[in-house]
């Protein structure tokens, strides 16, 4: 390598695609006459080819799957809450339609008869539903348009709509007790119910 560094520099420029026409001609004519530079140039080009030939280098065949599996999961619930916040109009419209179809308002007006979600082993006296002593109601108990007296026990939640929980004796309720006496509470109760179902459904 007795040659001027200038030519080696030109070779690198050539390999970087930055050589001007004039310099390219200069390099070419020199390579014709100088064997040592020819060899040097050949080796450089060969090195470049070797460095570029990396197509054999590949990650494992399930690489994509592994990456996708380790991405942080977006929490569904968070996702829905974000969706609700991002689309307030649609959310409002959806709630409106839920009211329409579930006819909450008419249900409130029309349905004034006493009803109870379960009547097995329960005593109904006038407008009062009694859970007798020694009787255990399994599951939630809903009483509409009537009072509730619990002498036995309820293994679940109790909802009293348009009525009262008569506290004469202390029966046992494993869940929560809720009294709904206003139309807005009644609506609220339905919304909570629908929302709960909605989330229960979407979380599946």
């Amino acid at each position, binding site marked *: 390598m007795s040659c001027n560094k200038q030519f*080696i*520099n030109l070779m*690198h420029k050539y*390999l*970087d695609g*930055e050589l001007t026409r004039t310099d390219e001609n200069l390099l070419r004519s020199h390579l014709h006459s100088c064997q040592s530079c020819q060899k*040097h140039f050949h*080796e*450089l080009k*060969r*090195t*470049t080819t*070797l*460095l*570029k*030939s*990396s*197509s*054999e*280098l*590949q*990650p*494992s065949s399930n*690489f*994509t799957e*592994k*990456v*996708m599996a*380790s*991405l*942080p999961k*977006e929490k569904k619930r968070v*996702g829905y809450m974000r969706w609700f916040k991002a689309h307030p109009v649609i959310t409002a419209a959806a709630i409106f339609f839920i009211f329409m179809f579930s006819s909450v308002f008419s249900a409130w007006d029309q349905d004034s008869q006493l009803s109870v979600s379960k009547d097995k082993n329960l005593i109904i006296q006038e407008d009062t539903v009694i859970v007798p002593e020694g009787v255990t109601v399994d599951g939630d108990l809903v009483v509409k348009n009537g009072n509730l007296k619990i002498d036995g026990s309820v293994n679940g939640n109790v909802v009293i709509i348009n009525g009262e929980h008569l506290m004469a004796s202390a029966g046992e309720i494993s869940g929560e007790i809720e009294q709904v006496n206003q139309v807005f509470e009644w609506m609220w109760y339905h919304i909570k119910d629908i929302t709960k179902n909605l989330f229960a459904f979407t979380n599946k």
Partner: protein
Amino acid sequence: METKIKEIIKQVKKGDQSAFEDVVTFYQNKVYQICFRVIGNAHEAEDLAQETFIRAYVNIHSFDDKRKFSTWLYRIATNISIDRIRKKKPDYFLDAEVKGTDGLDMYSQLPAEQLLPEEEVESLELQSYIQQEIMQLPTKYRSVIALRFVDELSLAEISEILSIPVGTVKTRIHRGREALRKRLRRV
């Protein structure tokens, strides 16, 4: 392709995680190869490439749509790989700089001892030989070499990815190529 990737990125930004799969499929080889060139072994390269994509996904909102996605992604890949090397034992011997020579001389003074066997080498064997020689270079040369030859990036792009001046990129490529020329002469 870059336009199609940008469309996909938009979907990912909107929260469509599954769209990211196409990004991984498309760039996995290049990212893996860049990591491999810098770190030098397959197992760690896979690990680093995986981390690159995860980090890209988590930070996808910081990607500016007006820029080239590959540049952004390769920047993550090289940063993660160089970080990993720093956390390992210091590369003090081969990375040590000799004043005024930008670090390459100590290396180029080492004799190229390993000779290739006479018989025809399998491509993967050849690759591991080439990589072995690349590993003799200091990290900062390896990252430039990786970017230049894995995806034939322009000097300007490499300068952007590594945040170093174009002139420095040029010098490192020239010196790295010259050093490897001596070492790969017998291949």
